């Protein structure tokens, strides 16, 4: 209820129009009883402050002049100096940097040294062998063709290594069931070769060579025939297992892990060594796998040694594996053949089952 102790609040509410009719009636009754306060109500005007007109006029002075992250280990001066070198500095930051630089002679020297950390390449430093890097279009063909030959030679060698396993019927069946998955064969061959021989090659190449040769000697080769053919022109030539078995030596492959590959005798006559063993042994041209590859590639593409030397053997093999297919052919109940097609080259192994 309104009284002389709280009438100012009623006056304020009245002036702001927030009293309801009943409350307004009470206020009027109160003024009738207290007429001395009427003029006070008449003079009562609320004071409204204009917020926008009031402000701190020096707020700019409170602001941070620069806003940048500090990298741990660098102080403000170093940070700004590097920003300047990096051409990443704002005008405000530049002002701060100039201020900081001016503080001491050491800072001035440091600022100059920071500018010197901007490196510039010495254009006299040039690679002299550009022409050796350039490629002729034929080289791609060489790479493609050679990779196929390289992989084929290696695969036939590896499969040759596994002949002893093949004589076990169970292993043989597993091998034959791996149609269309030459990588399995290759992995198997690689694992067998690398784990069994290549690692030890590093320690004892000569010993490994001897072991391979001894293993090979135990195999009855007369029943196994290796052939290769070029798919496009259907030429077929044979590689004699008899000859494969005759000489084993280290050859110098680019990749150390492949440095132990026996000589493969390439028979240029095209006649089966099975029927002309004695003659072909005498007339054959002994080639390492690498020499074999070079010979075939040169024949195919008419290139010189310099072009060929740009090809890395392992690269060729890796590429070739992507385009390798393997198939099994049952020639008869007693005669079987595994064929490996790698790009334009096909290798096969034929044997008579017991």
């Amino acid at each position: 209820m309104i009284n002389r102790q709280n009438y100012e609040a009623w006056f304020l509410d009245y002036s702001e129009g927030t009293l309801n009719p009943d409350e307004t009636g009470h206020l009027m009754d109160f003024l009738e009883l207290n007429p001395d306060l009427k003029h006070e109500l008449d003079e009562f005007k609320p004071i409204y402050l204009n917020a926008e007109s009031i402000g701190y006029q020096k707020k700019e002075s409170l602001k941070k002049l620069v806003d940048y992250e500090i990298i741990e280990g660098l102080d403000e001066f170093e940070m700004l100096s590097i920003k300047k070198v990096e051409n990443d500095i704002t005008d405000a930051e530049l002002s701060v940097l100039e201020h900081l630089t001016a503080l001491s002679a050491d800072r001035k020297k440091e600022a100059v040294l920071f500018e010197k950390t901007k490196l510039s390449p010495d254009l006299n430093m040039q690679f002299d062998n550009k022409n050796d890097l350039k490629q002729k279009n034929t080289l791609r063909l060489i790479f493609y063709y050679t990779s196929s030959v390289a992989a084929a030679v290696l695969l036939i060698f590896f499969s040759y290594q596994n002949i002893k396993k093949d004589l076990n019927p169970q292993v043989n069946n597993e091998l034959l069931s791996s149609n269309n998955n030459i990588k399995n064969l290759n992995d198997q061959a690689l694992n067998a070769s690398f784990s069994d021989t290549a690692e030890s090659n590093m320690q004892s190449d000569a010993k490994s060579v001897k072991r391979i040769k001894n293993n090979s000697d135990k195999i009855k080769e007369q029943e196994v025939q290796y052939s290769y053919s070029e798919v496009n022109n259907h030429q077929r030539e044979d590689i004699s297992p008899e000859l494969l078995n005759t000489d084993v030596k280290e050859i110098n492959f680019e990749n150390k892990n492949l440095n132990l590959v026996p000589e493969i005798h390439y028979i240029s006559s095209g006649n089966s060594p099975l029927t002309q063993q004695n003659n072909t042994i005498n007339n054959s041209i002994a080639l390492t796998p690498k020499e074999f590859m070079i010979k075939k590639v040169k024949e195919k593409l008419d290139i010189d040694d310099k072009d060929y030397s740009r090809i890395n053997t392992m690269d060729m093999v890796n590429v070739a594996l992507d385009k390798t297919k393997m198939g099994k052919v049952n020639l008869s109940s007693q005669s079987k053949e595994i064929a490996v097609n790698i790009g334009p080259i096909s290798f096969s192994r034929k044997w008579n089952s017991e």
Partner: protein
Amino acid sequence: MTTGEYNKCVDLYSDNIFRFALSSMHDMDAANDVVQDTFMRLWQHVEKVNLDSAKPYLFKIANNLMIDQFRKKKFESTNQIDIEKHSYSYEYTDIKYHLDKALNSLPQIQKTVVLLRDYEEYSYEEIGKITGLSESQVKVYIYRGRKNLKDYLIEAKIEL
């Protein structure tokens, strides 16, 4: 990329890769090998790489090859360049001599990002793609690299 475009890359970028490798490794033979191997890799994947993206691709390969080198043998070479003696048409001023030594004193990653930044004017983002670092990591390595270069130059007490 065609064979012609590949050969164009050899003309355009082999010097850059060579400078990058030589400045990083300070070994002439190793730098030559890096260039050879880098372009061999490009040639192997020439059909997958566009001419426009060839340069960062080459730098990425070169950088990876150098990392492999450092990991393999922690880089001890008899072919390291003697800055004071080699006459690779450099004319070392005092500042350049010390700056080169300062660069060689940097941790490998700092050296790599600073070289890519200054020699090739790559952005932080581009350097990140080449080195496999985030943009902010690249920035931090560059800033720390420059501070280390500056500190080395102060230690050397060179005349300005």
